[in-house]
């Protein structure tokens, strides 16, 4: 039950030039990003104020915390460290631009933050882990359900060729779109619509991220997932991710899932006591 009027598809790339800071600066930054990430093309430009030493330092501190979390939860997540692409993405995305003005000082704390409309921007560790768990191939196309502030989409923009993100709430979707545009994320495409249906026109996707905890996985999303693709979905109330589910679609279309605990949990041992 989806009205045509409900779709407000927009593409930042189609509307304007991504190089808001000037073509020359953009090219320089593109070259740097290319060198750093090892990907074929630059998918996002850098930002003027991302170079503010105050934020750079805070961001580096956040990255250190995320890496510590990754190491601490290695036995639960199976990932002791971040891939260089995800690590670089965390280092480059100016998280302070994705949080409400009054929370800018807390932007680089390793915790979720409220962004209004009953939504949150996920904890950086969870953002990093979910991105990592996608195991994206080179030049990947990714679908995100639940744009929110756009931070997760921005991180994905550094590790994928194209990011398609769907937001159900118009005010959130519109502000995320404007923000991503202002930051020069040309490879992020925002649509305001019911995320249940995914984004059929750009399917299939190498990976799908469902950023808000949902009690079910919409069947259309599985249909839009490429063979050997992964879908990652968190489970738990807002502000408290209990576990992540990684859905894998095999070449023959068979779907399997795996629970990933983003918490170091050593079960109390005893005679038959471990779960």
């Amino acid at each position, binding site marked *: 039950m989806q009205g045509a009027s409900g779709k407000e598809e927009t593409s930042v790339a189609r509307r304007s030039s991504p190089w808001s800071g000037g073509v020359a600066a953009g090219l320089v930054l593109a070259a740097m990003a290319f060198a750093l990430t090892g990907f074929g093309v630059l998918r996002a430009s850098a930002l003027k104020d991302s170079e503010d030493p105050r934020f750079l330092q805070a961001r580096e501190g956040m990255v250190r915390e995320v890496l510590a979390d990754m190491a601490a939860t290695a036995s639960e997540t199976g990932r002791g460290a971040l891939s260089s692409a995800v690590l670089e993405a965390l280092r480059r995305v100016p998280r302070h631009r994705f949080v409400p003005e009054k929370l800018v000082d807390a932007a680089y704390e390793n915790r979720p933050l409220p962004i209004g*409309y*009953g939504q949150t921007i996920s*904890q950086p560790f969870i953002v990093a882990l979910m991105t990592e768990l996608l195991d994206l191939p080179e030049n990947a196309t990714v679908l995100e359900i639940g744009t929110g502030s756009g931070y997760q989409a921005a991180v994905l923009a550094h590790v994928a060729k194209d990011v398609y993100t769907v937001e159900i709430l118009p005010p959130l979707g519109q502000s995320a779109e404007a923000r991503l545009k202002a930051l020069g994320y040309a490879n992020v495409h925002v649509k305001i619509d019911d995320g249940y249906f995914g984004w059929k026109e750009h399917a299939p996707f190498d990976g799908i991220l469902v950023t808000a905890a949902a009690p079910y996985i919409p069947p259309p999303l599985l249909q839009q997932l490429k063979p050997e693709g992964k879908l990652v979905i968190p489970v738990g109330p807002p502000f408290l991710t209990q576990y992540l589910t990684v859905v894998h679609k095999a070449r023959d279309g068979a779907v399997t899932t795996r629970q990933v605990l983003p918490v170091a949990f050593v079960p109390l041992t005893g005679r038959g006591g471990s*779960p």
Partner: protein
Amino acid sequence: MIPAAAVFWLSCAAIAQEVLLVRWLHIVHDHHFAFMILSLALLGYGAGATGLTLAQRFLVKRPAAVFALAAVFLSWAILLSAASLSRLSFNPLEILWDLRQTAHLAAVYLFLSVPFFAAGMATGLAFRTRPEKIHRLYLADLSGAALGAALAVGLLQTLDPVWALRLVSAVAALAAIVVPAGNFLARASLCVLASLALQALIPQNALMPSPNPYKGLAYARKIPETRLTTERFGPMGWVAVLESPRVPFRSLSGWSLSGSAEAPSTPLGLFVDGAGPIPLFSKDAFSSDFSFGDCLMIALPYRLAALNRESSHGPRALLLGMHGNLETVVARLEGFALLDVVERNAHVAELVARLAWGFDAKDGLGHVRVHVADPRRFLRAPSPFYDVIHPVTVGVLSASAGGAASLMEIYDATVEAFSAFLDRLTPDGYLALLHSLSVPPQATLRFVATAEEALRRRGIGHPQRHMAVIHDWNTGLVLVKKSEITSEEQDVIRRFAAERSFDLAYLPDMTQQEAQRFHVAWQGSLHRAVTALLSDRAKDFMKTYPFSIEPVTDNRPYVFHFFRWKTFRTLLRAEHGRGVSLLSWGVPVLAAALAQACAAAVLFIAAPLAISFKGASRRSLKTFGKTLAYFGSLGLAFLFVETAMIQKNVFLLGHPVYGFAGTVGSFLLWAGLGSLASTGWVRWLESARFLRRRNILSGTAVCAGAMVGFYGMVWVHLVPWAHGLHDVLRWAYAVFGPAPVAFFLGMPMPLGLRSLGRTDPDLVPWAWAINGCASVISALAAALTAMSFGFVAVLAAGAALYGLAAFSAPRRHGSA
């Protein structure tokens, strides 16, 4: 002079507001946070009495005027605190991350405790200024509270909640009017005008509670074109129906990941206290031949029951709880000709049956009967045997096992409940428990352990041959059969699961290799855990498991209470406290509330000692110590006993609202009559020479403790028997049964206050403050005790506390 009538109306307004506040808080926040906030707000009583203690030198000079002012202030505060509640930006979900939330929480406490502050101070003033009439004033206080509880429930049943609140505010003003001081007409006019002025100034929508932004209703309303189409208010909750034509609602728990069918959707969603949505499907949501059995996990018990359709009548199912109409539709499309649906909340039953498809006999799919009743009571009445029993509500609550449901008493998933379900099953029938999975597994194991105990109590030697468990990535289904699950049935379960990409977690003849073909659980735990739980080493397994998964009984019906302190400490060590996301929050929230209450109590009790009584060298430390111990024990003991009796009546009367109103209303009234009779009781004791004069207070407290310890225990143990009585007798047992206990519990407090009024009148407000603080601590401690040890232990602790009161009672009593 402050008349008893004024105390009566003041108390009536304060308690009615407390009950309304429970509703308000449940709409704004989840159950466990609502519980904590209300408990702490009630400390306002103690704070008010402390304020009186500190300022009594000035306040006792014109008690009537002060009382009248306090009553008018209460009438204002009732409205203002409600208006502020949903506007304070406290987000309990964020409290682990953001210290500023604790400041917001403190603001919430402050705003909500103001009305209770006024009530506590005014009542204490009455006691302080009329010590010789304390037994009457205490009667007025308790009976006013009894009426307030009943009034609030009645108002919620009949009125818009905002009008209910306005009326309660007016009742507070009435307390000011009946105080005889000066010109009656002038004073009455002033009070009425003062009350009306604020009533007129606060608009209707400012008093309407709104769910916090993280509740389903608040979120759904932000979706474009969504509108509220219907709403019902009642003591059981606020039921609202939203229409969202642009983004429809869906319900896909247990939906096969291998299914390609389009999931049904609907523009109508139902919310209870802001939680939801519960989709209400119309007939257009799917074709009449839609095969839910190919997609939904819950179709399995119906498929299994179909194997044994030998009876002349068609297959029958019983659904306990109405979570929309999906379960009803599935059962009917699976060929179940007779369906009984039992729902406690009349408004939910009415709206679902009216707005959703599947309840009309004219559709040719058989017969659906909707019963507004308590499921346990329904099963007591003569009813047919069923092929499938599905406790829907229990499964739905499992989704919030870590939060809102963790403190709830749920009598539909105890050993006794499962036994009752098994009694109503046909020999080949199935009890089906569809629920949300947690990591590590908790609810699944609790259900399995409880079902196993229920089967054992029926004399079944091998309960493990009567159970099956399947699951997907986030939903589990526990099946319990009265007779053994046959090989043929096991094959059906295997096929059903394999074809839909569901996994087997347990079958009587299952091998390890059959587990986790599609869904790999964390540490591969579910199959191993269920198998261990159904093996000979079950006791060891439960003992050493990180979470509490033991069977639950009617004595301790906390179905989703999995908390263990050892695990809590382990998980707290996780970076950023993220580990607590794996815990059920009930106990930590209760413990935090208890710690806050204790800290506040120390402050309120110690402040007068440090300020007002600093130079009172005449009194020994013993006087202060005895006063503190006596009135503190009484405050603790009374609420322990009342809590245990409320909970038993919740079970007996079938719903928390009835249990609360039925118990509090009658219990306080009986206690008030005990207070009234206390002077006669003392005279009788004196004339009969049972006790020496100086031991009369102790003796009375001992009698109260003995009544709790003996009569109260007998009453509690006979509750299961009374549950089967006719409605009139059941209500009589609930209302009149606790009378002897309550009657004796009403005596020690007024006798103690009167004794104090004779010897140390300025300590009366302090004693009232001690009692007020102890009552709050008691409510929280009783809940924690009940969760750990059960209601019988709560009652026993109450009896013991009366013993402590007897030990610390003053040696002089207040005989006339």
